[in-house]
């Protein structure tokens, strides 16, 4: 997936993204980090074709995202958005099956492939025993797994997640990140996500894209780009970068 000179503005006056170039590597976990308002969620929105760039384009499989038919793109790229909503009496299984929409017309009924995809997604997200439950009986962590299961049911090579750990307590945050990692490792799904927590980004990413003021400030392997200077430059926070045998690399903020 290639990003070529992407500029995006919500109001045609102020550019939220200017002149973004780069690429998303296939089969890797890529995490976008950056301070509030730096355009990281906007970049994710452009990469998943939710926003149409004013200039430049994002190219997937040799074709600009904006040239895909909605359903064709939904077979290649699934998105778990930050805010989600569904009727509370809906069951886990039914909601997960929505991931098959791109494969169906308005009138077609469920096929064997659909059922297998749902089965696989529920198994991968460890939701098999919850399948008949209405979603209002789930915890926040379980609910987030359902949205991921729905995205998995689309059976796409790319999975995008916008701040998937927000609103979750620490257990569910790591449960979710472990799930994302296993989806990448075991099923080869390319992951692109936005995270707030730099340590989580370090631990779970192959590549980090650090953004500031609508531009890419640094891009590379966590060990290469996360330095005290870089964090000071991007976030304005003083940190100490530590290495530990058990914990690996991590940062500790010490002041501003």
């Amino acid at each position, binding site marked *: 997936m290639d990003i070529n000179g992407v500029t995006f503005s919500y109001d045609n006056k102020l550019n939220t993204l200017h002149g973004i170039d780069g690429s998303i590597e296939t089969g890797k976990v890529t995490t976008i980090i950056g301070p509030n308002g730096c355009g990281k969620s906007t970049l994710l929105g452009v990469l998943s074709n939710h926003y149409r760039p004013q200039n430049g384009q994002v190219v997937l499989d040799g074709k600009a995202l904006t040239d895909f038919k*909605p359903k064709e793109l939904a077979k290649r790229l699934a998105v778990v958005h930050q805010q989600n*909503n569904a009727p509370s009496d809906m069951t886990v299984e039914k909601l997960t099956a929505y991931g098959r929409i791109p494969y169906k017309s*308005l009138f077609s009924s469920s096929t064997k492939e659909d059922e297998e995809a749902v089965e696989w997604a529920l198994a991968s997200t460890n939701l098999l025993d919850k399948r008949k439950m209405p979603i209002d009986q789930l915890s926040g962590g379980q609910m987030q797994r359902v949205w991921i299961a729905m995205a998995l049911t689309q059976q796409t090579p790319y999975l995008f997640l916008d701040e998937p750990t927000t609103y979750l307590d620490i257990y569910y945050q790591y449960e979710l990140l472990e799930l994302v990692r296993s989806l990448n490792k075991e099923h080869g799904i390319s992951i692109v996500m936005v995270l707030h927590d730099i340590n989580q980004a370090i631990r779970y990413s192959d590549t980090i894209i650090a953004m500031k003021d609508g531009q890419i400030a640094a891009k590379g392997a966590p060990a290469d780009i996360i330095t005290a200077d870089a964090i000071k430059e991007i976030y304005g926070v003083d940190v100490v970068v530590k290495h530990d045998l058990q914990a690996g690399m991590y940062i500790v903020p010490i002041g501003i």
Partner: protein
Amino acid sequence: MKAGRNMSWFTRRRVSFIVVIALLIVVFVQSALTGSIQVTPYELFHGLLTGTNDDVAIIKDLRLPRLLIAVFAGAALSVAGVLLQAVMRNPLADPGIIGVSAGASFMSILMIALFPTMFFFVPMFAFLGGALAFLLVYSLSWKSGLDPLRMILIGIAVNALFTGLSQAIGFSGGGLTQSMSQVTTSTLTLKKWSDVDVIALYGSIGILLSFFVYKWCNYLALEDKTAKSLGVNVNLARFVIALIAVLLASVATAVAGMFAFVGLLVPHIGRTLVGNDHKVLIPFSALAGALLILLADTLGRVLIAPNEIPASIIVAVIGGPFLIFLLRKSDRIYGY
């Protein structure tokens, strides 16, 4: 308590459907038998089949059209409510509240005033008026998304505008009042079989079409972003569903007059009884809406006979408390 609700969901749906269908049949037959002319069930069926009973002939000419119009108007308005609520993701969307019915009514009155001979085309004018009102509400409340509160406020404003315009025409043209009262009031008196033809035709088309788009209605309950990521053409879905809703609300208004509240009340009752899945909610609302207006009209006809209470008043009197009762019992509104 919650587990019990899940276990019985399927049964609960079935029971709800059976009860509503049974009540609809009972009320319909009872309503056909009751009134200033009374016959026995045997006389009614025999008379209808053979055409030899004068009382039954009068019932057939005067009472049956009225009953059928009540049934179709109730079904059409309720389904219109379900569809508008899906399109606007707003539990308060009701054709009578956001101005669709008022727009339909206004356009009908205006056209009758200007071209009295074109009475036959009233449903078409009503549709144009309803569509105009909906477009106004939708476009004016769209500001990088639909804010439910802004939408309702603008809907109320549009409703007030069209209601006011209708009344203004009423005051300015003395001779028109007779033909106008057809569209402005909700009594179902003096309905003819030609009225039944209109509402049965367009109402059935609209309800049938709504069955085809139930999946879209379900998808729109997700966030727009999510639906788009699943490859749903959200704008097309909204447009088509809204068009069907406007058709249903307009034809019901053109033939049966203004019924506020039905499109709000019936879908809410439906949600608490059969759930949010539009595959079930749309047909259930059609049946329950038909029952509600038929019951209201029948009560209005017999309670203080020989005078009549308009059906819309009875709807408000039964419906209001019933909705409050259901909302008090359930902890959720519109499934969230």
